[in-house]
């Protein structure tokens, strides 16, 4: 059979088979999708776009190639979904533009139309990314022009087009780093090749096998793992622990009993886990699944034949070794020094940890940890020498008891406030012995001035001030120095009281749960205006009760 002129009806059939072939492969294409966004929908999007194009083609009754391609382009445009779908619609918009007037098409026309599609497609992008469907379309278009010059018959011509597209697709990982890293070809390019393959099959009068590219299973698995690795930061997040891959070799007897249907098999397997890939041909099924019970998946496969090439990996173990999960490491050696401290609020906890505290007990004013809490913390610190900073005078006693009871060497640095605790920590010297550290840190602690802003829970008279419920109190070194209705005014008064411009250099503001950013900024602005030589440091402590904690040194 020789075919030198393509008629409208033939073109329409080619398009329909292209769409059908894309549909059967859309899941495989989804699996390859790692660029631009690894959300695994390229195949689905291309399929939806292409189906919409094919629907329009079905409605064309005239045997006119130009009209068929126009209808195709219109359907694609209306149904375009996703990046790849939009590109596909542009490719065939240019394609149909070139064929508008043609009732029948020669190979030269077809090549020109492919080129026209490429031109249109490239015009609609500011910065074309190479290594994508665009590259495959362009290289195939270029190749088709050369092909058409010596080949007037359609069958070998389209065969050449498919070969060129396949060759170009192979090159995509070299052009786009993310593809190379994952070890896959571009999903959109794969989609385009699949459409061309459908064209070819129609010309040959062949039924397409559902999966033209069994060997891309490895790529699909890579892409699935790549997507998965981005999902999990924590080993505990892995729901399905075993990466299971196996092949089933069909056996006649078993098939007679349980006939194999790929869709149904995939459906059943999907209930057992995720990252599922099923690919099959006449002899084999290849399966990749992440599941909690690999045995069940294997049993399901075994219904159809014998199992070959099985591979099961424990992903939790792998993930743990990747992220270095502390929880599952062997008992660690005792550290030389451990530091236990008491503070309230997440920000505060982080602040202390960043300064070297090993264990931060949540507590403080109104919630004093018990001796047992502190003893437990000493054990948790897992060190031969432990320093305890209670950061509150009400906790000092409990801390000292805990230190006495401790099985390791423990000493208390009697910090009464958060700022004192912070200053003391700065003096910690891991080389010095416990007593030397205790002395040094205690002396440092005395050099810092501490202040806090909190609110009154009832009316009271104290330190010569009369305070109303709900008013704010500025507390300097445990003594209430001002009480006012306005939080910021109280804070400013307290700072005025605390700062000695001759001696002090640094003011640190630790904002609590009840302080917002505007208030922090206002205080910062106030300090910069009135005490220009002071350095201001700001931390978020998120502590309850105290809107602000100030330290001045």
């Amino acid at each position: 059979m020789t075919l030198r002129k393509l008629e409208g009806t033939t073109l329409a059939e080619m398009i329909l088979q292209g769409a059908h072939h894309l549909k059967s492969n859309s899941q495989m294409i989804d699996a390859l999708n790692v660029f631009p966004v690894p959300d695994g929908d390229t195949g689905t999007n291309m399929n939806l776009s292409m189906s919409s194009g094919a629907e329009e083609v079905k409605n064309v009754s005239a045997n006119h190639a130009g009209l068929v391609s126009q209808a195709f382009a219109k359907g694609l445009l209306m149904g375009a979904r996703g990046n790849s779908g939009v590109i596909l619609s542009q490719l065939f918009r240019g394609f149909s533009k070139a064929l508008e007037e043609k009732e029948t098409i020669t190979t030269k026309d077809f090549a020109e139309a492919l080129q026209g599609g490429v031109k249109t497609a490239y015009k609609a992008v500011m910065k074309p990314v190479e290594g994508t469907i665009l590259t495959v379309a362009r290289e195939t278009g270029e190749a088709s022009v050369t092909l058409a010059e010596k080949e007037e018959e359609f069958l070998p011509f389209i065969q050449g087009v498919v070969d060129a597209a396949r060759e170009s697709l192979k090159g995509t990982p070299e052009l786009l780093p993310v593809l190379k890293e994952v070890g896959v070809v571009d999903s959109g390019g794969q989609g385009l090749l699949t459409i061309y393959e459908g064209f070819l099959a129609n010309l040959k009068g062949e039924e397409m096998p559902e999966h033209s590219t069994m060997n891309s299973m490895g790529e699909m698995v890579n892409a699935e793992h790549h997507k998965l690795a981005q999902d999990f930061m924590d080993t505990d997040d892995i729901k399905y622990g075993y990466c299971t891959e196996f092949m089933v070799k069909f056996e006649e007897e078993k098939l007679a009993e349980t006939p194999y249907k790929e869709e149904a098999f995939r459906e059943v397997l999907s209930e057992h886990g995720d990252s599922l890939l099923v690919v099959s041909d006449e002899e084999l099924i290849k399966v990749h699944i992440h599941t909690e019970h690999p045995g069940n998946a294997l049993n399901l496969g075994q219904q159809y034949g014998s199992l070959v090439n099985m591979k099961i990996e424990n992903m939790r173990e792998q993930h743990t070794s990747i992220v270095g999960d502390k929880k599952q490491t062997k008992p660690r050696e005792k550290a030389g020094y451990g530091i236990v401290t008491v503070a309230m609020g997440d920000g505060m906890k982080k602040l202390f940890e960043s300064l070297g505290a090993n264990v931060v007990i949540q507590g403080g004013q109104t919630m004093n940890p018990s001796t047992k809490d502190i003893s437990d913390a000493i054990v948790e610190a897992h060190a031969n020498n432990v320093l305890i900073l209670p950061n509150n005078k009400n906790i000092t006693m409990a801390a000292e008891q805990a230190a006495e009871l401790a099985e390791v060497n423990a000493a208390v640095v009697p910090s009464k406030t958060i700022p004192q605790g912070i200053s003391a920590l700065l003096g910690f010297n891991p080389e010095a012995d416990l007593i030397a550290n205790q002395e040094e840190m205690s002396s440092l602690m005395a050099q810092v001035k501490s202040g806090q802003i909190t609110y009154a829970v009832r009316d009271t008279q104290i330190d010569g001030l009369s305070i109303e419920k709900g008013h704010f109190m500025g507390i300097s070194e445990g003594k209430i120095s001002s009480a006012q209705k306005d939080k910021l005014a109280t804070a400013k008064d307290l700072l005025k009281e605390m700062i000695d411009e001759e001696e002090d250099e640094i003011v640190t503001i630790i904002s609590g749960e009840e302080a917002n950013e505007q208030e922090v900024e206002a205080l910062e602005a106030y300090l910069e205006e009135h005490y220009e030589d002071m350095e201001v440091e700001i931390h978020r402590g998120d502590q309850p009760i105290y809107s602000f904690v100030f330290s001045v040194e």
Partner: protein
Amino acid sequence: MSVDLTTKYGHITISNEVISTVAGGAAVECYGIVGMASKNQLRDGLAEMLRRENFSRGVVVRQEDEQLHIDMYIIVSYGTKISEVAHNVQSQVKYTLNKTVGLSVSSVNIFIQGVRVINE
């Protein structure tokens, strides 16, 4: 305005300029976009196309409470499905910002400021 991240070694401050450049860069790699437009058409002339260094004029980064919102002013190519192109830009900008800056964006609002018709 800027975005602050705190790590165990210290603070990272990312200015809005950076966010808008990353967002603009991600957008122009998206298919169907032929340019970024200035958000201020009256002042800057009709949908003047912006060069890379001017991305920020077509990208507005807003912070409300703890959430990040991005407004993008773009020009699309004639003959593309505009809603789809816009949707692609949204998902790509969100993904790219998350990947490169570690920021989670609450909304990416797209304003189509122009369509460029190319002779065929």
